[in-house]
């Protein structure tokens, strides 16, 4: 069972009916809490009961950093932020790259899809062991 986030701000734009449209999934657990990334079980060991596509929402920057000592295959500098989404009153945080170095705590950002966040062949982790696409955060006016 999934939730499509209908009725939330921005949901119309992502509702294309195309199954290949990338989504930024958060898992929803029986107690109403959300996590991104989704986990096999949530609070109390309960399995998720649905998902929410966070790319339908905007978030607020909780904190950020610009890293200049980046590992192989990672852009330099690499500005990162922890952001918090408000999904109908339920908070959920995410971490990710920021599209610009011009970011401040409290800024509003929206998720922007990126096909390859770092070079899968340059780092220590087996390239096929995980996905390398995802969402960066772009400040919105």
């Amino acid at each position: 069972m999934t939730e499509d986030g209908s009725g939330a701000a921005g949901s119309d734009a992502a509702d294309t009916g195309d199954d290949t449209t990338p989504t930024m999934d958060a898992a929803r657990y029986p107690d109403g809490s959300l996590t991104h990334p989704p986990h096999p079980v949530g609070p109390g060991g309960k399995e998720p009961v649905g998902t929410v596509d966070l790319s339908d929402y905007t978030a607020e920057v909780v904190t950020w950093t610009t890293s200049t000592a980046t590992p192989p295959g990672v852009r330099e500098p690499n500005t990162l932020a922890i952001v918090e989404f408000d999904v109908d009153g339920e908070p959920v945080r995410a971490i990710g790259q920021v599209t610009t170095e011009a970011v401040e705590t409290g800024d509003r950002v929206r998720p922007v899809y990126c096909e390859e966040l770092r070079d899968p062949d340059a780092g220590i982790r087996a390239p096929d062991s995980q996905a390398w696409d995802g969402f960066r955060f772009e400040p919105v006016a």
Partner: protein
Amino acid sequence: MERVAIIGASMTQFGQRDAWIRELLAEAGSACLDDAGVAADAVKHLYVSNMASGEFEGQTGVPNALAHDLAAVPAYTARIDQTSASGGAGVYAAWQSVASGASDMTLLVGGERMTHKTTAEATDVIASLTHPAEYKHGVTLPSFAGLTARHYLETYDAPREALGRVAVKNHSNGVDNPHAQFQKEVDLDTVLESPIVADPLRLYDFCPITDGSAGLLLCPESVAREYTDEYAVVSGIGGATDTHVVHERADPTTMGGVVNSSEEAYRMADVGPDDVDVAELHDMFTILEFLQSEDLGFFEKGEGWKAVEAGVTDRDGDLPINTSGGLKSKGHPLGASGVAQVYEVYKQVLGDAGARQVDAGTGLACNVGGFGNCVTTTILEGAV
């Protein structure tokens, strides 16, 4: 249950070494046995704390290699990996082996060989502990430190200079540690003007990349008395985890693993934070010293920076923290660090810390893996 004693300790020179992992482990292992006057064939269990000898050097199976190199065969061996907290986790495993009655003489050696890798490569080896959702964004341990430091400074209205004072203090302590990678003072301006690594943190907010090894020898207290009148007792020990995904923690400035592991250790030792005379904290990044000093209960949340500014944690303060120089000046050979923390506390509670000596009957070591992902807290008391 009989108490578990530490009757010997060793630490190699930390820094950029010619020796590789096998040689580093053997150096600390044999020095530890010599320190206690115990023969290698008396060792029943041999634990090696090490995060990544395979990834760094292409040498796996290091516990068996060490057993052979020390002539400790047929001792039971195991490698303990808990990333940066491998050393503390090794102390826990060694303590368990004795406390359970499975071993009456356990040698623990922690070590890592890192400096042959570039900073970028070593950073990636360490960052490989992160969740895939973090790793794909290029999230590293230093970037977690930058994110958390900014949040701490903004939340508690703390000045940037306070972080710099951690580096200044620990470098000052390291001057008197002959095993430290850096035995030199740094001034606050040098810290605050050093290159940015993970804004707002700069080069001198970070520990270096280091080769080194350290050892501890543990046995039941009744066995300890056969060898020496001067030993330390592991009066409390606890271990705990926090979320793998760091941003899911309710309060980014609280390390639940530190809170939970220390509560367990305090309860076992029947002491509280106010009873601790000296502490070794995991200052891989300056911000971590604030977080741990608060989560261990030494100071209120958001107040740790004030204690550093007031000199409370100086060597001559009310609660000296990182008399060894900490990871900041001593260096951080991953698997060795938690063992070397306990080495320093052992020296302090036995009154054997030389120029670094403070008045200490009870000491605490807190070893942090990941960004607080897994933590071990150990409390020692001297039995002199």
